[in-house]
């Protein structure tokens, strides 16, 4: 776009036409993506950068978690179970993969068999561990027989690792994924962009609304902001921080979408190490933290204060944010009882790859100083964090966001990096996994959350907000993210 001086108003007009396409014009959307996917195979990586592009847009699953967090039929038009052990799915007829072949029940069996096979190195083999047998009854009917009642079976079938792809395309999933989704992969220019184009044979009538979606990889948030203001991108979905929000909210060219996610930001304490092995110390630290101030200081006031692991998008969410209130006096008393009347020194290990970890750590360090816990912040690179903190639990304190939905299981795993090992909690969790009655299961979830608050294995700080910024006129973006997915099938420019 070359224009000088007096030509600028004309160019601005042209830009205006571009950003609000007239009826009948091609509907294109250019989206910033902060991270390039490490591959496009959802069955090989849990990376959210991959899910953002592929999940729901290129590949889909038998059932889907919709924008309200509800599990709805998708590639299966319905399902049936009489005993919560045998689930029969009835596939939608006439659904075609991007290579033109029709989806059959044998494809579903193939992908789930493959996910269960340890040789394929699926990142979440645990989600399929309960499946005993898969029987293809006919081309459109498939039955899963579970080894026992599994409450989360349907949810697991809706997750990103359960997407259905054609058997013949299994070797190219990493670079050229094929699915049944509303968009087809057109090109992936490594290091620069991924382009999706409309799937004209999509099985949902009237969708998708866009003709082309381009994901441009812009890692620097300031560069992304400049690109948005210069009109080079139409939307930034995850790339901008809360500090950019006030300025963009005032700008009439943009709309800022703020919603909930399942990304709970926590400060974990290594429960197997002194002094954190003492529950009084863990409680003292929890009482020493003023969570609303943390959200204000580190996140510009954006983010929901959290009391336990369960996020507000979960149907079993109970607001426990006031259960362990900020009370420095009580915190000091608890520390004294535990044998630390003068507090202690602690190392907080964070990975600056996630911007909020360092900021949050700085606010926490200042707050905990007041109860005598003197924190030294140590920044480590992400690869090191994964090896040292997550894998080997070589840490005292750390901050990270857990983006996965329904991840309370981590607290029932004594080998997880929290090193929280409580038999009562583990028993409750096991029971919740096999309880399908909604009311009874909810009761178990309430008990689990109460137990977690009491034991304070970690400090649940806040839910990282969903922050999306688009040009005015972009419609249909999900406000909340009940799963780490970014469904663009209903997104369109206002006419």
């Amino acid at each position: 776009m070359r224009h000088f001086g007096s030509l600028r108003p004309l160019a601005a007009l042209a830009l205006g036409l571009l950003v609000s396409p007239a009826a009948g014009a091609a509907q294109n959307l250019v989206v910033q993506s902060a991270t390039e996917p490490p591959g496009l195979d959802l069955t090989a990586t849990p990376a959210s950068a991959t899910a953002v592009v592929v999940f729901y847009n290129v590949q889909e699953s038998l059932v889907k978690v919709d924008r309200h967090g509800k599990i709805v039929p998708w590639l299966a038009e319905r399902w049936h179970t009489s005993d919560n052990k045998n689930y029969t799915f009835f596939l939608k007829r006439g659904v075609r993969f991007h290579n033109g072949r029709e989806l059959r029940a044998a494809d579903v069996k193939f992908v789930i068999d493959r996910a269960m096979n340890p040789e394929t190195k699926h990142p979440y083999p645990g989600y399929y561990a309960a499946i005993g047998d898969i029987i293809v009854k006919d081309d459109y009917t498939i039955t899963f027989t579970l080894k026992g009642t599994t409450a989360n079976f349907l949810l697991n079938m809706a997750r990103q690792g359960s997407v259905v792809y054609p058997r013949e395309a299994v070797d190219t999933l990493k670079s050229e994924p094929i699915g049944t989704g509303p968009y087809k992969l057109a090109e992936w220019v490594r290091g620069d962009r991924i382009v999706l184009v409309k799937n004209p044979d999509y099985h949902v009538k009237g969708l998708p609304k866009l003709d082309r979606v381009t994901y441009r990889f812009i890692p620097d948030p300031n560069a992304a902001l400049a690109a948005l203001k210069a009109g080079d991108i139409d939307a930034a979905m995850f790339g901008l921080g809360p500090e950019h929000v006030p300025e963009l909210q005032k700008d009439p060219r943009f709309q800022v979408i703020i919603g909930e996610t399942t990304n709970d930001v926590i400060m974990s304490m290594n429960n197997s190490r002194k002094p954190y092995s003492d529950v009084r110390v863990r409680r003292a630290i929890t009482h020493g933290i003023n969570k609303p101030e943390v959200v204000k200081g580190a996140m510009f006031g954006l983010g929901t204060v959290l009391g336990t692991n369960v996020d507000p998008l979960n149907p079993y969410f109970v607001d426990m944010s006031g259960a362990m209130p900020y009370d420095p006096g009580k915190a000091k008393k608890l520390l004294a009882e535990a044998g630390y009347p003068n507090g202690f020194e602690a190392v907080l290990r964070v990975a600056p790859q996630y911007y909020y970890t360092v900021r949050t750590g700085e606010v926490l360090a200042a707050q905990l100083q007041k109860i005598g816990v003197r924190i030294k912040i140590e920044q480590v690179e992400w690869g090191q964090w994964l090896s040292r903190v997550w894998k080997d639990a070589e840490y005292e304190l750390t901050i990270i966001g857990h983006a996965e939905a329904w991840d309370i299981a981590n607290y029932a795993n004594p080998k997880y990096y929290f090193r929280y090992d409580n038999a009562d909690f583990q028993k409750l969790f096991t029971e919740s996994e096999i309880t399908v009655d909604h009311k009874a299961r909810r009761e178990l979830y309430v008990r689990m959350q109460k137990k977690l608050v009491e034991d304070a294995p970690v400090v649940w700080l806040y839910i990282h907000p969903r922050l999306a910024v688009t040009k005015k006129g972009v419609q249909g973006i999900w406000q909340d993210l009940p799963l780490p997915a970014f469904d663009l099938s209903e997104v369109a420019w206002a006419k």
Partner: protein
Amino acid sequence: MAFVATLFFVSGLVFVVVRVLPGDPALLIIGPEGSPEAAARLREALGLNRPIPLQYVEWLTNALQGDLGVSLQYDLPVGRLIASRLPVTLPLTLMAALFMAATALPVGLYAARRHRRAGDYLAMAVSQIGVAVPGFWAGLLLILLFSVHLGWVQSGGFAGWSTGLWPGVRSLLLPAVALGLFQAAVLVRATRSSVLDVLREDYVRTARAKGVSELSVIGKHTLRNALIPIVTVAGVQLGQLMAGAIILESVFALPGLGRLALGAITARDLPVVQGVTLFVASSIVLINFAVDLLYVVLDPRIRYD
């Protein structure tokens, strides 16, 4: 011989360092929400459990046959990945070098000729700013001015050469200026001091006394003699431009070699880290070799046996 020895040393060093550093490629692929068992199986499949010397010998044998391995992240041959990034990084570095030379030589020369006068002080003040401003910040300021406010160029990204020469050059203009700014400022100072040294030489005074024109005094007697230290500094700077490209390519979202390297280090994509390092090391050795050859051209007294 020295060329081969340098590359051999660099490849061995990088191979050991990236493997000894904490950070496991399998864990980075599987991520914190995947299962540790899956990560362990992946580690085994990637061959990362084998002894490092064995891995190195295997890598070296393949590299000598032109096979740099396959990227863990992209599942593509490393050689192909590097080749795909060169159409961005080479022109970017070249344009930054041109910007550096085209601004630093005249300004440095001008400052030397106006020694301790207003022009000299002004040139030094401007170059001081150039030295002090980090490249990424200069890049952001340039984006704000030329993309956001004036709308003359795109804020980032690479249009590609297939769309024509001008769109490609235009995508690289701002990053090249941001990249070359620091080095240009350094080179202004090197040029000024080198020219000042030569201007004080007897033969310059003699030339002037003989009535040789000022243009000839500067062009023939001064600049040529001052160029040896300038070329030495510029040679080192060319290598630094390639390093600087890592940050600038991120700011301008350019799919170049620097971003490939950065992404590969973060993801512990060992074959790519290894391949890019080898390529950059070879380039720097070649630049040094070219500088050595230039010495001979500039000063006929220099001879290599």
